[in-house]
């Protein structure tokens, strides 16, 4: 083969390879355009077919058509993907052949060239280079400066926005607070119970001795005396006159209402004022504000908040927690005995707040209009999130103790914006926050593994913590007269001095699994999951009495009207005299099983059963 033949061969090979590369490249471009145009997921035909199916859900022919079209579209899509991949390899192969052929061609043609007679003038070149460097450097700097002027610093704007929000939120709540202090007749009409109960301090104080005389029962504890702080739009009087959270006012299990019925019967309907079906399941307890009762329910399809008329049991509205950004599309795995709606809702009289096992937090106004909603991320909880909400001082407190770590959040009740977010050295917990007044300031008390701790409601600062708790903590703390009582099954029961953090006493004879301790007027009530109710001296731990009823207690004991109310999981509520000696007043069968805690307001008891909400009253 002569040199000319080799040159021709290399030239022809290069020509064929080049043409091949151009054709493959064009086909790839065409394919790229085709793929971008025919995404099976974005298919308009499919959208039309799906819309038609929504109108005709039982059209089997249409369903088959959709499936066939979907299969076709997907086949086409993946076929294109295969073509792209194969085309890329072919192009690479063609390019290699082209490069080799060209190299060979030029290597055959090349010969050592004669050196240039006139070399580039280096001096002139350097002078031009100086200009080039200055121009390029200048352009880079100028472009950077222009970009800096064209850039908006949104992070700085955020500071302004938050300031505005922070300023706006209290102003709104202050306004509402004025309304609460019985300035508006309209508001009074809307919330009769709330306003009726807005008595002055003197009135409350005047009422309490009467209670004492009538039932010879101890007074509500000193720390629950009327609140004098003006910082909160929610006054302690309002809280006492309603039942706005899990275990009532401040979550302490102490009720300030009177004339609570002590006898009823579900089977005969005695003292059952009304009974209303609950649309969706949930282990949360009712809360009451004025003439409205709130509960929540959830299943895999939706999460809902229900508002009932306290007088008639009529379902006034249903608030659906949907379309919340970040809410998971598939429900987190939860156990049946926890569910997605275990946390009890709370209300400040202006809004009702709910949290679900999905991490969705939502606020409705009292008429069921959504105020705000957000998702906090699915709580990493192997049974399901169950810590209830509580509100105070324009803040909604969320105990978010999960397998991923512990947090206590305070959200602005008006906007849902975070006020503070405190990380806790705690693990998962199923207990709920409890509010306590200490030296005129309110704390949130939480129990989890391994700490029982108190937090400043204003700042979220951890004020104290005692390392004493173990296991899977379900019961919330009891609080009375400066002593925090925390207990958990297979762990311990401790009495902690809230000011000194000294453990006053500790016992592990009877321990609750889910039922929270009730501490009030020197007594401590514990209810175990194996059916034993025990009364202790709150300060010393001395046992006064115990009552083995033999049925499971998940509900929490409540003090109301000088009596102790305790409901078991079989739906039997026992009423005791609240004292150092066991004195069973009555046993009342509801006829429906469950383990929620009752709500008390205006001479009535509201009990959530498995399927129905009951109102009991004289």
């Amino acid at each position, binding site marked *: 083969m002569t040199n000319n033949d080799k040159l021709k061969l290399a030239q022809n090979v290069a020509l064929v390879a080049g043409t091949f590369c151009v054709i493959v490249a064009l086909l790839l471009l065409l394919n790229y355009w085709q793929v971008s145009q025919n995404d099976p997921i974005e298919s308009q035909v499919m959208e039309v077919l799906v819309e038609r199916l929504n109108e005709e859900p039982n059209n089997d022919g249409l369903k088959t058509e959709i499936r066939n079209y979907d299969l076709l579209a997907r086949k086409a899509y993946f076929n294109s993907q295969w073509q792209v991949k194969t085309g890329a390899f072919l192009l690479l192969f063609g390019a290699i052949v082209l490069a080799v052929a060209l190299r060979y061609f030029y290597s055959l043609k090349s010969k050592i060239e004669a050196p240039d007679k006139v070399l580039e003038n280096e*001096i002139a070149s*350097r002078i031009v280079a100086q200009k080039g460097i200055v121009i*390029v450097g200048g352009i880079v*700097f100028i472009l*950077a400066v222009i970009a800096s002027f064209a850039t908006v610093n949104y992070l700085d704007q955020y500071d302004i*926005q938050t300031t505005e929000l922070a300023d706006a939120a209290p102003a709104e709540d202050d306004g509402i607070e004025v309304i609460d202090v019985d300035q508006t007749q309209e508001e009074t009409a809307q919330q009769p119970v709330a306003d009726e109960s807005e008595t002055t301090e003197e009135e409350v104080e005047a009422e309490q001795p009467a209670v004492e005389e009538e039932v010879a029962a101890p007074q509500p504890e000193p720390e629950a005396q009327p609140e004098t702080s003006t910082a909160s739009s929610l006054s302690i009087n309002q809280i006492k006159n309603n039942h706005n959270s899990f275990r009532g006012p401040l979550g302490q299990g102490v009720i300030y209402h009177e004339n609570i019925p002590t006898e009823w019967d579900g089977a005969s309907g005695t003292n059952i004022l009304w009974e209303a079906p609950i649309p969706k399941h949930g282990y949360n307890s009712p809360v009451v504000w004025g003439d409205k009762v709130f509960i929540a329910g959830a299943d895999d399809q939706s999460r809902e908040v229900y508002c009932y008329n306290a007088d008639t049991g009529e379902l006034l509205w249903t608030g659906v927690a949907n*379309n919340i950004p*970040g809410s998971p599309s598939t429900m987190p795995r939860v156990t049946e005995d926890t569910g997605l709606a275990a946390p009890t809702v709370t209300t400040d009289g202006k809004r009702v707040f709910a949290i679900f096992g999905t991490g969705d937090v939502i606020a409705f106004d009292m008429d069921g209009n959504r105020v705000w909603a957000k*998702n906090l*991320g699915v709580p990493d909880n192997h049974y399901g999130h169950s810590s209830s909400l509580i509100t105070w001082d324009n803040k909604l407190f969320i105990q978010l103790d999960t397998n991923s770590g512990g947090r206590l959040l305070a959200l602005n009740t008006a906007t849902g914006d975070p006020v503070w977010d405190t990380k806790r050295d705690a693990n998962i917990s199923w207990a709920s926050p409890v509010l306590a007044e200490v030296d005129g300031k309110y704390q949130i008390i939480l129990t989890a593994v391994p700490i029982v701790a108190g937090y400043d409601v204003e700042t979220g600062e951890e004020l104290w913590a005692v390392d004493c708790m173990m296991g899977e903590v379900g019961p919330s703390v009891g609080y009375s007269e400066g002593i925090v009582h925390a207990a958990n099954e297979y762990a311990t029961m401790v009495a902690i001095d809230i000011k000194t953090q000294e453990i006053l006493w500790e016992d592990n004879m009877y321990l609750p699994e889910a039922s929270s301790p009730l501490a009030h007027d020197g007594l401590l009530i514990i209810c175990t999951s194996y059916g034993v109710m025990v009364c202790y001296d709150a300060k010393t731990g001395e046992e006064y009495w115990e009552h083995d009823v033999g049925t499971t207690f998940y509900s929490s004991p409540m003090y109301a009207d000088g009596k102790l109310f305790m409901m078991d999981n079989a739906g039997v509520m026992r009423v005791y005299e609240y004292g150092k000696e066991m004195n069973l007043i009555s046993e009342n069968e509801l006829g429906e099983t469950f383990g929620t805690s009752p709500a008390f307001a205006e001479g009535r008891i509201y009990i959530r059963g498995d399927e129905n909400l009951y109102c009991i009253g004289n």
Partner: protein
Amino acid sequence: MKKIKYILYLLIFAFYLLPSHLSAQQQRFPKPEFESGYEQPSTVTPEPRALSLEYFDVLVLLAVLSLVTWLILKKRSRQGVLWVSIFTLIYFGFYRNGCICPIGAIQNVTLSFADPAYAISLTALLFFLFPLVFTLFFGRTFCAGACPLGAIQDLIIIKPISLPKWLNKTLGLIPYIYLSLAVLFAATGTDFIICRYDPFVGIFRMDAKFLMVVLGISFLLVGMFVARPYCRFFCPYSVLLSWMSRFSKRHLTITPSKCIQCKLCSNSCPFDAIDYPTDEKEVVKSGLGPKRFITYALLIPLWIAAGVFVGERSHTFLSKANNDVYLAELLISNPEIKNDPDNIDVQTFLASGKTMETLVEEAGGIRQKFYYGSMIAGGFIGLVIGVTLLNTVVFRKRQDYVPQKGNCLSCGRCMDYCPVEE
């Protein structure tokens, strides 16, 4: 010859090892099937590799570097370097998918200094250091035959044209700017831009995004006529290699003994990296003497100050490349975006449970890092401009045709042009 045999045995042994370890690259768990049509994004880095194989890669790099250096300095064989380049392209390019490479390792090293929580792997560190150490002693033999990015460009050089010196010098600023930005983004934990915008890695992996394919092919097309454009005018690692190479004592020489001034090599370098003998009379006549040297030297602090100022001004703009800053600003400027279920970034943030305050606080922290980082980067660019200008008025006395130590890629082409025998 025995040495070559040993090396060949070693390479054959290495190839035998490859198929048995290909499975180590496969995913341990299959990717989940999404019903929402979510597309798995292409990862910037390939699948993790067994540690032993990472060390094997280091060994291969070391072997290739040694072989190329030996071929250049001892054997003076351009043909040998070419074959090693092909091996490098196949092994480090197509088989190892272009990762890890010393060029990208700049970012790992930077991040390990900037982020105490980030621990650089020993293999990444060795990949970063070995080429620098070799270059310090023997010139840029890494570029000659051990870099897959260089190899793919080198193999498609068809008819290189010579660029004027001024253009070479001016375009030569780009690697410094690229290096500054790469270090800034790596130090702030923003991105590994060298890897993200590597024009050839998509070709190696055959899975590049369309625009990156276009970029890669464009570089190759240009590279047919402007030899190795990425290496000369973009590669950030070339900055470090260039610095090291200037100090190399045993750098490649065009002639094996005394230059006979035949000028045959004057057009041999496709990278315009041969310096000609100095014409002292022209230098004296030009006026580019001590006065201009002093002026340019005095201007260096001003260039640095200008760079620092520009860096300070542009830090807000640059920080927007950071994901956290971008997300925080997006949520602040467009709060309604929270309701867009298709915005995966926003929805992921909302599902994470992280508060807006935390996000903004973190974004503020990153911006603060950019504040200082941009000033340092700007100052560095200013220094480079000042020193490059100064270099244009510095003349070193040369009597022969010699490779520019800084820019010479040690490919060995010029050696073939030299008629002088050893």
